[in-house]
């Protein structure tokens, strides 16, 4: 069954499964002082060190969390609160409009409940934030002294566009403003180094790189202490309380080590497969619109995102699903109604095109046969979805 939705979640690596299962049978709270606790703590700390190595960070900078959404919330809310507490004038949050909802909704919440002034940075038609635009935003409004933080994702989860993270960091740091980036999609696909990026906070998660669900990390500069979301036992620098997930940490670390080790080869292989997929879709559906940066250097190697004019994303998804091909429309409301992509809308697409999109994302188990299956199906599926679109438009 062709699985083309690795950006949603990707199969666990055998090494990660071994690492998790190896520790499932052991007792031990990593905060306990006795021998069982010490054994658990050793596993957690070795995992933290492995993660730090893979992420270009120091072990003390790795804060383990329950996943990407929690890391994003901790970074955005925690840093906002801490920065505002230090200087009440800092209420501006500068954010890209193409963020994942874990950042977007957190930022909106700060605006609605915590007096934050949320400002969305302009993006180009690929959804990219340019450093000059960030500079103008910082200088604008009430000025640099009132900016609490900047948050711009490393790579977009829908259209795959890479952001110039290091340049954006340089720009913000010139004003002493901290920067957070959600690197959930980037890790394992492009080189990701916390130290080289200059970031102050960076979100990563296990299940997108072949690790387990329910564990992630906020890589966090020692210069910042965000106000915690979870108060309790004081684990993780007192920033994230909660009993540590020993098997999860071990599995996450194993996956991160392999994802980073294999990144260059994986990127090359998936990019070749992705290019074949894009060519096949274009051959079958000549008017399909490739969204995101057409330059391979500017997008994730595993991502292909199209709009199919005249189609509804949900119809395409259903017809492909019926043929055993699994992909995604991007986002749906809580009841499951597909929504026009906020990423495409921010990048200037017409609402009809933003509803007509599908994301194909490749991963470590993808094969040429997956692409061939899609190549065979996509033409008839689009034709049928177009007819359905016409039927829906008729009264």
């Amino acid at each position, binding site marked *: 069954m062709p699985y083309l939705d690795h950006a949603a979640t990707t199969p666990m690596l055998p090494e990660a499964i071994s690492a998790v299962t190896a520790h499932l049978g052991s007792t031990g709270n990593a905060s306990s002082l006795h021998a069982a606790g010490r054994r658990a703590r050793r596993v957690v700390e070795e995992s933290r060190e492995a993660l730090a190595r893979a992420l270009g960070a120091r072990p003390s900078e790795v804060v383990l969390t329950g996943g990407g959404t929690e890391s994003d919330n901790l970074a955005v809310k925690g840093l906002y609160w801490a920065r505002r507490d230090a200087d009440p004038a800092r209420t501006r949050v500068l954010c890209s409009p193409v963020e994942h*909802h874990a950042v*977007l*909704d957190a930022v*909106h919440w700060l605006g*609605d409940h915590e007096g934050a002034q949320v400002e969305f940075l302009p993006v180009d038609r690929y959804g990219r934030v340019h450093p000059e635009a960030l500079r103008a935003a910082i200088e604008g409004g009430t000025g640099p002294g009132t900016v609490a933080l900047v948050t711009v994702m490393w790579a977009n989860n829908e259209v795959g566009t890479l952001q110039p993270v290091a340049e954006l960091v340089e720009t913000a740091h010139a004003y002493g403003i901290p920067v957070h980036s959600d690197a959930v999609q980037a890790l394992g696909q492009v080189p990701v180094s916390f130290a080289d990026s200059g970031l102050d906070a960076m979100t990563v998660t296990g299940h997108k790189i072949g690790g387990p669900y329910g564990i992630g990390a906020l890589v966090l500069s020692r210069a910042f202490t965000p106000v915690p979301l979870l108060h309790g036992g004081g684990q993780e620098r007192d920033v994230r309380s909660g009993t540590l997930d020993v098997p999860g940490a071990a599995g996450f670390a194993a996956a991160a080590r392999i994802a980073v080790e294999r990144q260059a080869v994986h990127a090359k292989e998936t990019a070749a497969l992705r290019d074949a997929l894009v060519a096949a879709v274009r051959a079958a559906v000549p008017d399909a619109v490739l969204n995101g940066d057409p330059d391979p250097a500017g997008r994730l190697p595993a991502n292909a995102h199209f709009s199919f004019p005249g189609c509804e994303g*949900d*119809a395409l*998804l*259903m*017809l492909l*699903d*019926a043929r055993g091909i699994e992909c995604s429309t991007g*986002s*749906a*409301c*809580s*009841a*499951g*109604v*597909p*929504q*026009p992509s*906020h990423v495409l*809308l921010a990048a200037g697409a017409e*609402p009809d095109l933003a509803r007509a999109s599908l994301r194909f994302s490749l991963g470590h188990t993808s094969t040429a046969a997956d692409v061939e299956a899609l190549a065979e199906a996509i033409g008839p599926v689009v034709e*049928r*979805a177009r*007819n*359905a679109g*016409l*039927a*829906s438009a*008729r009264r």
Partner: protein
Amino acid sequence: MSDFPGTGSGPGAALPGADGPAGPGGGRRLRVLAAMSGGVDSAVAAARAAEAGHDVTGVHLALSANPQSFRTGARGCCTLEDSRDARRAADVIGIPFYVWDMAERFREDVVDDFVAEYAAGRTPNPCLRCNEKIKFAALLDKALALGFDAVCTGHYARVVDGPAGRELHRAVDAAKDQSYVLGVLDADQLARALFPLGDTPKELIREEAERRDLAVARKPDSHDICFIADGDTQGFLAQRLGTSPGDIVDTDGTKVGEHQGAYGFTVGQRKGLRIGRPAADGKPRYVLDVSPVDNRVTVGPAEALDVVALTGIRPRWCGPAPAGPGEYTAQLRAHGGEVPVTAELVDGELRVRLAEPARGIAPGQAVVLYEGTRVVGSATIAATERRSAARA
């Protein structure tokens, strides 16, 4: 083969466009779109269709839209819980499941129409309208375009093959029968409809849901209008139509009370009139007429409600339209009884004469004609003729 009684009436052995291996029961294997509301009936209907060998896909229709605080362009569905129940049932049955957004069509074709009908002094039936415009039009059209052969619902009614094509019949469970709200379907729509529950009493459906491990087995039936969640139709209308105080008058034109909007009244209504003075004869008074033009509600004695004839517009036939006058029984409102009638199509209007006078017949409701258990057709009641001269 099914362990359960009746794997479905009318899985279309004669359906065009159906291919694939023959399913159990002699029908052919169809690609079926099962509309799943999140209730027990549609869940069992989908399960029966799947068990009958059809290739079933579940769909929940998101019909209500609320603006949501966060996501630009996003909507929160007030049917969130129902959509989860439907998804859960589909997962247990083992069929694909999707949510389709038909909120805009539903608002235009059902909700706006509902409000406009009340504003015009009529009493609409939104379920009938939804079957005609949404489930067996917008949904069916989209389903056919996507390659499905039929739409399956949990309605209690039967589709059977008759000499002149497909026929719609009352369900065996008379108390649950929903053929009245399906009376608007024409032969083409019937040919694409699957009602797997028509041959089973409701109580057995709940038992069957339990046996099938469907979590909705004990979910209460929905009684209210689905888009008026709190059941307060008057409040819903007042919000949209505002208040418009006017007079309540007797049959001779004497003012006997006041109202806050003529749309709040239905012909035959007795309660909630809040008339201060009792009638001269001391008998209860009923709404005889609602006239939005002069914003006037006329009340009078029960006898004045007796209708002997009515005219129906927008006739729809479940098969060929009958030629000349015919003897039928008619159902004149949801859950109403049957009355013997003579009906004839004259200049595109349905003229119906009742053998015995009947009460509580409100313009806007449907008249559905039956021949035995078979639905012949329907029309929307436009005007009624009263026995007495009391009609205002």
